[in-house]
């Protein structure tokens, strides 16, 4: 399936480009208006964010347009970069080295390989069963029991979040939905669009109308207004995209709600991780956004949920 052959896909991507162009235009207008120092800083960050969005949409667009394998490779790279960021923050010991090597060079490629060949059983079991048992075995064979439970838990957690959860996004393309064969790319695009637009709108609504802090001890920038307004708008946008999915409008609304709620939980959980490790961002790889993991924190949670809810009800 390609961009040219599927008109709905072309409409979705066209819509994203229009949306980004409007955002760039707004940022350009705001740039001339910001007077105060904090206002200028906010606008500068906004400009950096929008510029990075163009780059991300470009990369993702190419991945989608090159068919299933393109997006598979892209998400494998995303997993790699996310895991590299996460591992950097972990207090690991010398005895963990071998297990960490295996997470990168065996489990990460194997997980994406199983998605590529569409082997659902191994895709679902590789990390929760095989890696779950093999990694602590490798760690214990290194003979260091200091802090063992915490060390092995951290490693499991990183692999689950960065590889297992993220791989559910491209795996949407292996679902066999009646009357929707070979159109999985649109399902992936639906997930990514609703997840990311929810983030963007929560940020925007929060900045414009936010008053009541939602969870000040975890993430001081998150507001009740941002969650309700941004999340609500994202559900509306998701619903309005029903024509590109195998869902009826009300089903698209329900699934968008699942995506938005999971995304909020993901954002908060990853914020808590950053607080715990005493960093502001996972890295500085994407200007204006932080690290790869800062950008996909909500996707880590929404992808597996959306995958399994869709799989349960529609296949």
């Amino acid at each position, binding site marked *: 399936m390609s961009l040219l052959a599927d008109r709905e896909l072309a409409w979705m991507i066209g819509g994203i480009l229009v949306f980004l162009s409007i955002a760039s235009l707004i940022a350009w207008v705001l740039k001339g208006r910001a007077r105060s120092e904090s206002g200028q800083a906010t606008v500068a960050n906004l400009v950096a964010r929008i510029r990075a969005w163009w780059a991300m949409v470009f990369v993702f667009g190419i991945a989608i347009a090159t068919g299933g394998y393109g997006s598979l490779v892209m998400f494998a790279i995303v997993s790699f970069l996310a895991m*590299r*960021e996460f591992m950097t923050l972990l207090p690991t010991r010398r005895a963990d080295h*071998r297990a960490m*090597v295996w997470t990168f060079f065996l489990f990460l490629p194997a997980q994406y390989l199983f998605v590529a060949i569409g082997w659902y059983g191994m895709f679902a079991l590789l990390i929760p069963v095989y890696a779950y048992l093999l990694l602590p075995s490798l760690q214990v064979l290194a003979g260091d029991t200091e802090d063992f439970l915490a060390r092995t838990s951290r490693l499991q957690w990183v692999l689950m979040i960065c590889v297992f959860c993220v791989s559910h996004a491209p795996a949407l393309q292996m679902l066999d939905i009646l009357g929707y064969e070979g159109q999985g790319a649109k399902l992936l695009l639906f997930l990514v669009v609703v997840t990311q637009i929810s983030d963007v709108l929560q940020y925007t609504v929060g900045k414009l109308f936010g008053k009541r802090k939602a969870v000040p001890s975890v993430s001081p920038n998150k507001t009740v207004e941002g969650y309700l307004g941004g999340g609500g708008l994202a559900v509306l946008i998701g619903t309005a995209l029903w024509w590109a999915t195998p869902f009826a409008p009300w089903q698209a609304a329900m699934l968008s709600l699942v995506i938005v709620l999971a995304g909020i939980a993901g954002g908060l959980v990853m914020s808590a991780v950053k607080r715990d490790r005493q960093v502001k961002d996972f890295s500085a790889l994407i200007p204006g956004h932080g690290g790869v993991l800062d950008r996909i924190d909500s996707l880590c949670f929404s992808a597996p949920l959306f995958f399994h809810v869709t799989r349960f009800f529609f296949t």
Partner: protein
Amino acid sequence: MLLERLVSACLRGLCRLFTGAHPRWLCDPRSLAPRVYFANHCSHLDTVVVWSTLPEALRERTRPVAARDYWGHGAVRRFIAERVFDALLIDRKAAEGAEQVEQHRQQTLDAMTGVLDSERSLILYPEGTRGSGSTVQPFRAGLYHLARARPAVPLVPVYLGNLARILPKGAALPVPMQGQVVFGPELRIAIGEDKHMFLERCRQAVLELAGGRA
């Protein structure tokens, strides 16, 4: 020539992938005058990382000092050391007897001053051997003798962070993580500065760049 450039590009790409290394410069990264970069040593990656984060113009005129017993061993390593890094291979094992030790020291020093005299820079590790990465060990006297021999050449402390976790001693494969490379402000030896004070000052200069992380 082509093979060297290809290997060089691959090494730099892999280094980027596995260490995400982005240099932070507190001295002028454009200065082409010869310098002595001295870094903490905790991984076989150290030389690759410093070498690959130098801007191309500096990289071409910089020669890492490397131990012959490791880098001179095997065809691949020797090719990388001699043809890609253009490393200055030195013998770490000192000969027996005081006279031979002195002679060996002088030879090593001559080789290093020779590089500086030909308008090129050096990368060296004054700790001598790789540490665990958790501390910086006391510096050996080589840096002092080199600074005394060429007091006008600026010395640049370099802090390498996290590389011991990426490729620790005894490990064959690296774990990709973000490393740190900080090139500190230039320093020089003072006239009549005591050997131990000078070496400790240099060590502190590296530790300062760590910002409490080492």
